[in-house]
């Protein structure tokens, strides 16, 4: 401990001297000041890591430093004959998926637990010069009968979503989870396990916004998420691989419900799964998983319904005419309101994974479908079929050690079909199918 303290102070002196000149540069550009501070923090912790210190103890106050770095190469193959291929075929890129550092700890014999989790890869955004939010988790938990968490963390709505990506055989989540709904949010999160955690209850009351915001939510309305998870014959952690090769079958069944009523559309276009709408958004998720002898089967269904509030578009002139002449026929039957059609999004996910321990290998097959923004009104063009994405994917992992240093390969083919109701590209089946290959390496710090 003594040597660590010396190391940190000498390192900070060294690092501050080195960074003085860069500080001048960065402070001349306000957009990069945040980046500079975070970079300094990251480098501080990195050098602490280099000194082989990953955890610190002060009686029953403990803190650890972890993180992961995951670069990968992504390339896509489209049919040569398609005109869109000419646009998209040059989009093959190398990317930094994760550059994460995590401080996690507890005090008073775990009466308090906390986490600060940053992802520096989030600061890189090819479409904007604005820095993006690097916070993945920032919360404190009080453990007293019920785990009560305040802050920004994962929302408990789906087993796939609650499984950290480092424990998944894939580099990218299924469409319905990855882009379906916000997966993290700031607010109050409660958790309680009974019967040795074979039954777990979750509830979160959060902003219901797609990202952390300092602004008042002018759309009004928060989001409530509840989840019930039952496992048998023992609790089942949120992991994507049955590493322990369970000698007996272990099952888990979960169901989650989300509700929000807002006054504004978020992320709303025809192809997007909307985070929030001007109206009531409800979501029901059901998931089932089983682990047995290195095999894991995961099945999920996510269903979202959008019930729009009626739009008031009356005018004072027409109102005055109706008031003065009761026999006057309004311009349309529901005047002064327009009653938007409800829309729906449904997604499925099936994933079968096998851990071949002898060869340090993981094989996984996944099928997922997202049927985005469809209508149940047969008069509409998107009747029961909105924009549909079917993805068939295969993943192979080679585990270089037990510490999740993993070479990951993911091959996926996505086929588009269905229609939308408003846009110019009504028939999505005209889009070329996409073959995407991702090659990545995941290294865990800590």
């Amino acid at each position: 401990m003594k040597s660590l303290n010396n190391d940190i102070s000498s390192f900070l002196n060294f690092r501050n001297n080195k960074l003085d000149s860069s500080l001048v540069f960065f402070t001349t550009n306000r957009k990069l000041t945040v980046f500079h501070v975070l970079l300094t923090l990251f480098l501080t912790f990195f050098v602490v890591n280099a000194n082989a210190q990953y955890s610190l103890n002060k009686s029953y106050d403990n803190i650890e430093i972890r993180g992961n770095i995951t670069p990968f190469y992504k390339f896509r193959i489209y049919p040569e004959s398609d005109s869109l291929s000419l646009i998209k075929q040059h989009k093959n890129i190398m990317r930094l998926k994760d550059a994460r550092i995590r401080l996690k700890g507890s005090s008073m014999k775990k009466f308090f637990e906390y986490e600060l989790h940053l992802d520096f890869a989030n600061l890189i955004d090819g479409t904007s010069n604005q820095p993006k939010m690097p916070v993945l988790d920032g919360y404190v938990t009080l453990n007293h009968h019920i785990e009560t968490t305040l802050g920004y963390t994962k929302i408990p709505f789906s087993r796939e979503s609650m499984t950290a990506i480092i424990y998944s055989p894939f580099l990218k989540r299924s469409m319905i989870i990855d882009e379906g709904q916000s997966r993290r949010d700031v607010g109050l999160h409660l958790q309680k396990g009974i019967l040795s955690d074979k039954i777990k209850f979750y509830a979160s009351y959060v902003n219901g916004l797609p990202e952390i915001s300092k602004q008042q939510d002018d759309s009004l309305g928060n989001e409530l998420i509840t989840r019930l998870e039952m496992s048998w014959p023992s609790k089942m952690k949120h992991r994507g691989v049955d590493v322990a090769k369970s000698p007996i079958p272990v099952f888990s069944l979960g169901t989650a419900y989300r509700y929000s009523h807002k006054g504004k559309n978020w992320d709303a276009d025809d192809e997007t799964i909307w985070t929030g709408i001007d109206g009531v958004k409800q979501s029901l998720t059901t998931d089932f998983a089983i682990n047995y002898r290195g095999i894991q089967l995961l099945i999920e269904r996510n269903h979202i319904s959008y019930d729009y509030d009626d739009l008031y578009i009356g005018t004072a002139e027409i109102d005055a005419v109706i008031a003065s002449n009761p026999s006057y026929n309004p311009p349309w039957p529901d005047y002064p309101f327009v009653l938007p059609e409800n829309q729906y999004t449904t997604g499925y996910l099936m994933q079968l994974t096998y851990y071949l321990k002898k060869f340090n290998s993981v094989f996984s097959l996944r099928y997922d479908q997202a049927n985005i923004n469809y209508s149940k009104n047969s008069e509409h063009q998107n009747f029961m079929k909105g924009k549909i994405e079917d993805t068939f994917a295969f993943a192979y992992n080679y585990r270089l050690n037990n510490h999740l240093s993993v070479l990951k390969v993911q091959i996926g083919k996505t086929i588009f079909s269905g229609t939308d109701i408003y846009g110019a590209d009504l028939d999505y089946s005209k889009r070329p199918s996409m073959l995407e290959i991702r090659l990545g390496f995941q290294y865990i710090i800590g």
Partner: protein
Amino acid sequence: MFILYNIILLFFTNPLILIEKKPSNVKESSAIFWENKNLYVLGDSGQLLISDNKTSSYFALDFEDSEGIYVNDEHIFVIEERSRKVVILKKETLKKIAEKHIPFSGRLNRGFEGITYNTNSKEFLVITEENPCQIIRLDKDFNVIAYHDLQISEASDLAFFKNDIWVISDVNATIYKLDSNNFNVKESWAINVLNPEGITFSENQMIVVSDNLEKIYYYEIPQ
């Protein structure tokens, strides 16, 4: 075909002979020790079972993350995983009389998993879970003598029995017998138990406890 394969695997690769199993009724049973006809089972958050042939007594002790237990004539030694401590209790009263810090800077939840005592070398031995999986040799005052990297990748508990060190791994579902001088693996056996977290020996049985299932398994001692 798959089921058949596993049945064959079970018959031909698992020579451990199960005698009986019982519920421990200790939440997250993570440590077990047999001493003088008494069986001690300790849970993650401090629930302690002391059982003899006739009675079972449960105690609620104040621990953070208790993962290993060793008992001698006068004291109970409990290892705290996250806080890197050995906590010493008076055996008769279960009162804490001392705690000793053992330096180890691995991940908090990949810390100490078990404690035992080598009666030949007069040293305490503590085992760490993984990354690295080590045995730490301690003198009678719990000063570190040495850290030894093991050939095995993950450990959940250890026991000293008949001049050998026995290590159980839940992730590998394996029991290892190690040479007590150089810690090399001498033999190993697959164990068909979900999440085995503790191992100890009575005079004629090997006893294993499952954390998730909260059950105690009694085996013939493998030869």
